[in-house]
């Protein structure tokens, strides 16, 4: 099976765990809770890109609970923290493309430059293929040099069809045509690439709105998923990205890319906490198979083990 790749996720989490979260685990192994425990815990969460506000909220809530329930052992506190972190990530959990029975599902993939959109699209395509879907890709990044070629290489490798226009053409028109093509060719999943854009570029965010609108006009209900690809190495700016992208288009989920490095991806806690956007997938390598459905328990468990 292709998607028995959880070991890859485990591998990458192992690396994470050996570092900062590993040290958190160390803090909690045995002994009583002291003031030092809290301070070190805050520092460690911040070092994992969880962010100041989320860290403070998590730790304060834990302290309160610990006091209320007269908990003295660090071990117990650790379990509670894990539960909290899982709860935070699960608050808005929802199945990817829930509500089956559509003839065609359109998945729009957005994100800042270099976050890993194209590779993540290849992974999503592979994921759908393994579920027996007929996939069509739309080369919606008409801006960056050779972005279309990059997706074309993936399409060929994966054996899926690609709808592409010339570089510099209107991305909305690409998506419009791609929906036509998907319907004509009987594809049931259309995954659309978009050009990387910094969320601070007003015009480009307007363009994204338009692309989203074009899809909705061509096929009511589309796009059925608008996935924001977030680079796991991103720091606090990830929250600004998620916030601004979801102001422009209704972002329905996150794809946390590049989790195979040493970065912890802790910003997802802030995104979940403030925006309630669910994390749907994680990417853990350069191969199309390096994708896993997001599992909050596993994610948090892995971080602490």
């Amino acid at each position, binding site marked *: 099976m292709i998607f028995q790749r959880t070991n890859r996720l485990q591998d990458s989490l192992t*690396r994470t765990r050996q570092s900062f979260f590993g040290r958190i685990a160390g803090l909690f192994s045995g002994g009583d809770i002291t003031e030092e425990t809290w301070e070190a815990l805050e520092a460690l969460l911040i070092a994992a890109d969880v962010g100041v506000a989320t860290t403070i909220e998590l730790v304060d809530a834990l302290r309160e609970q610990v006091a209320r329930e007269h908990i003295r052992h660090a071990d117990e506190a650790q379990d509670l923290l894990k539960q909290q972190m899982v709860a935070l990530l699960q608050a808005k959990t929802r199945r990817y493309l829930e509500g089956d029975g559509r003839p065609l599902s359109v998945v729009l993939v957005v994100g800042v430059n*270099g976050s890993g959109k194209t590779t993540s699209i290849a992974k999503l395509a592979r994921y759908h293929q393994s579920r027996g879907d007929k996939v069509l890709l739309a080369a919606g990044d008409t801006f960056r040099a050779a972005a279309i070629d990059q997706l074309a290489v993936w399409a060929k490798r994966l054996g899926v069809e690609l709808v592409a226009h010339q570089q510099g053409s209107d991305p909305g028109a690409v998506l419009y045509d791609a929906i036509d093509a998907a319907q004509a060719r009987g594809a049931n999943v259309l995954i659309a690439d978009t050009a990387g854009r910094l969320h601070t570029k007003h015009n480009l965010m307007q363009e994204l709105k338009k692309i989203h609108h074009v899809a909705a006009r061509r096929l009511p209900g589309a796009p059925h998923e608008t996935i924001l690809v977030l680079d796991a190495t991103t720091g606090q700016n990830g929250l600004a990205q998620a916030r601004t992208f979801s102001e422009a288009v209704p972002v329905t989920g996150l794809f946390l890319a590049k989790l195979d490095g040493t970065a912890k991806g802790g910003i997802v806690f802030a995104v979940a906490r403030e925006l309630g956007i669910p994390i749907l997938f994680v990417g853990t390598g350069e191969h199309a198979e390096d994708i896993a459905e997001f599992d909050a328990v596993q994610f948090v468990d892995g971080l602490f083990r």
Partner: protein
Amino acid sequence: MFENLSTRLQDIFNRLSGKGRLSEADVDAALREVRLALLEADVNFRVVKDLIARVRERAVGAEVMKSLTPAQMVIKIVHEELIATLGEPRKLNLSGTPPHVIMLAGLQGSGKTTTAAKLALKLRQSGQRPLLVAADTRRPAAITQLEVLGRQLDIPVHSEGDKVPPPRICANAVDRARKGAYSVVILDTGGRLHIDDEMMRELEDIVRRVSPSEVLLVADAMTGQDAVRVAEEFNRRVPLTGLILTKVDGDARGGAALSIRAVTSVPIMYLGVGEKTDALEPFQPERLASRILGMGDVLTLIERAEAAFDQEQARKMEQKLRTATFDLEDFLEQMQQLKKMGPLHQLLEMMPGFSGIKSQLPEDLTEKQMKRVEAIIRSMTPEERRDPRIINGSRKRRIARGSGATVSEVNQLLNQFRQMQQLMKQMSAGRGIGGFFGRFGL
């Protein structure tokens, strides 16, 4: 939830300036806030700790007491320490016998290929003959991407497809540069994880074979706490000579640059500030520090204004400013140029004193003011624009009706314009865009 760093710091300093003298407790309270703000800017927590310690040492005691106001002194010290940490800028090392080899390395998606093209363009503009080398054989179409960019810029690209090992491609490229009298060779290597041993060995291989005079780490300005580890690991494998920070045109505050510099001592060299191939700026520590501090950055603003100006137009404008024949028609044109620089509220953020009041203004207020001024001028006849002195009472009423403004608004604009013309007569050259628009409350 998270305000940006400059708003945060502004808040802190506003609070501070209300007090006469700065006690140790005040300094500590302020520094706690500075610490949080820096952490939110992705400055590595270890670096923050060091920086705070240094500032505290300087801030508590005599130095502060001697200063004009305690708050100003704290700003100064934090700013100075940020500048000191960011370090001195350094130029590319192009001494010795050409071809000079510049290798770019970094994580996937940090912006190496775009940066390679930008760097090649910059070097050609300074009289070099650059050769770009497509050494990323892994990412699909990375080679094509560099080739397309090379074609756009008319800069040759050395590529051997994706089957030849990158170290060999690089060595061949340097041979070709030698024979073809290229003065600089820029190696665009594939993105790789710092912990991917095999890929890091490939980089070491390239370095062994072509001994680059510059090994530049390309890092994303949005990188979080992990930036330090990435930089340390790259530096351990292929000693780095410089850092290029990319995507600085976003709203990330550049904490990663501060961290990388502090931990590895690798000098910061350039900032990538846009997707276009000319969007590469030399790093200037004061500016980056100011941006972090929220003190504004008028210099960048002016520079951008200059960049947005059409050269020919700029010359004409300068001539007009010199001879004080600058009229409302020119003013309108200049306003169009200003618009090209981006949303006004973003520009305001870069100007001293404005970042604080920005959040109190409705976002589109200044845009509205600008539109209003534009509407008033557009309601004038070309003759009136060229010579506003002819605008009498009835003309004013007509202009007010035409633009939906009041007569007093028209008067206000004309008065301000007169004052500005006076000012221009006093100026020898036309460089004062900041103060210029400042007069209009923009």
